[in-house]
């Protein structure tokens, strides 16, 4: 159902939600925007930048979090999961889409991550579509879009003075139950805007046959070429909404077993105690990063593990651009015998 949220009513609505939820929305922190819980007198930064610097996955998989607490010598107990009801307002469709992909990792039949699941179950996602998609983004190329619905409970379209609200789940519907219904004109206006936004985004690279090419060229010099200037830092992966790797470390002094974000771009990530490292150089690590997103995810869930948010492009300290890498991959020979 399509509803209307007047912009001058937005703060009122957010405050109303604060009665029942911890409401997170993009706000300014230093020079960038960040999902922070709303405090009295909050100032939203919805129009500041397209995406928050740190993807909202951090609200579900914090950069560091304790899994176990050590109680006495050799004893331990589980850290309780977090079940505070939360509402994330203003999440962009690419980031919300990424959540559904991460669900396939953390919520599996055999092993479900209780911390992830508890936070996911307790959190509603209200998205804000991108009527002016960002230049570095390439969501439409990878099967997402500036108004993609995946993972969202409701999505907002900016129509000037009002937001058109499309509720997508029952929970989303109940959130906006107070609002008036949108006219057909308004719905049509939004739909035009949504299509125009998607149409304004060029196709960044060809995804058809990309997986096969990457698979078949596992030993190609291509990987060395694209990783030559890579610094092997964690910017692209830490700011990526679909990267989820973590490390588990015992902090003995604090008495906790914690998990920290980790990345396949670090040398120590795959380094074994024997000194053997299956991915010793930037070449193998870059290959792992790209292949994971563009072939392994495809094998696993039949979706590219990238939602085209463009953060890795914007913040790479050496200006590496995944779109250019994949355009180059489009040129690779196909059907080379896999060794």
């Amino acid at each position: 159902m399509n509803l209307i949220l007047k912009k001058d009513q937005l703060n009122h609505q957010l405050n109303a939600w604060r009665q029942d939820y911890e409401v997170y929305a993009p706000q300014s922190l230093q020079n960038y925007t960040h999902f922070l819980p709303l405090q009295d007198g909050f100032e939203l930064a919805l129009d500041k930048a397209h995406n928050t610097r740190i993807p909202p996955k951090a609200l579900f998989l914090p950069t560091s979090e304790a899994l176990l607490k050590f109680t006495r010598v050799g004893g331990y107990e589980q850290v309780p999961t977090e079940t505070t009801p939360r509402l994330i307002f203003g999440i962009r469709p690419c980031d919300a889409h990424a959540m559904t992909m991460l669900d396939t990792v953390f919520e599996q039949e055999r092993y479900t991550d209780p911390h992830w699941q508890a936070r996911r179950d307790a959190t509603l996602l209200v998205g804000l579509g991108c009527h002016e998609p960002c230049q570095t983004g390439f969501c439409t190329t990878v099967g997402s879009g500036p108004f993609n619905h995946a993972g969202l409970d409701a999505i907002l379209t900016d129509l000037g003075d009002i937001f058109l609200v499309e509720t997508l789940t029952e929970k989303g519907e109940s959130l906006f139950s107070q609002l008036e219904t949108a006219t057909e004109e308004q719905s049509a206006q939004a739909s035009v805007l949504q299509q125009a936004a998607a149409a304004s985004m060029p196709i960044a690279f060809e995804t058809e046959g990309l997986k096969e090419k990457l698979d078949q060229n596992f030993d190609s010099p291509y990987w060395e070429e694209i990783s030559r200037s890579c610094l092997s830092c964690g910017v692209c992966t830490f700011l990526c909404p679909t990267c989820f790797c973590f490390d588990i470390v015992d902090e003995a002094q604090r008495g906790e077993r914690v998990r920290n974000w980790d990345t396949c771009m670090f040398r120590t990530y795959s380094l074994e105690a024997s000194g053997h490292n299956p991915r010793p150089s930037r070449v193998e690590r870059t290959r792992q990063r790209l292949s994971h997103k563009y072939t392994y995810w495809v094998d696993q869930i039949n979706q590219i593990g990238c939602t085209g948010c463009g953060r890795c492009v914007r913040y790479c300290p050496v200006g590496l651009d995944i779109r250019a890498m994949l355009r180059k991959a489009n040129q690779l020979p196909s059907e080379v015998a896999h060794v």
Partner: protein
Amino acid sequence: MSETPKLVLFQCQWCLFSPADQEWVDNQLPANIHLIKVPCTGRINPLYLLNAVQGGADGIMISGCLPEQCHFKTGNIGARRQLEEFSDYLNYIGYEQERVRFLWLDLQDRGIIQKELAAFEAQLEALGPAHNLATRTVKSAGGANA
């Protein structure tokens, strides 16, 4: 929280020439002083000081040999440069310089370390507990980004 300052003493194993002083340091050190014996002050990595600070030390004393009296000839001189710079640097970001004290001992010195420790402790008591730099001992939530 107790008011007795927590103190870490890095002691060069050669700097106390008197067996009585060494015996006192080894066996009779008050409970609030954590002793770390090193083969030479030159062995003290600034990371050790960081560990002491992040371990919750209110003050750090480094006792070593006077210049030209180092058992290993020059360990103390290198240490002096590095550790002093480090304490100066810690002061720059919020760990008071008064919390790091160096004690360079002469071969003839007797009973100095006890006095110096007591004086240092009094100074730290006046300063109050160190609370600026984060420690590893208490449960703390993630940072601004968590």
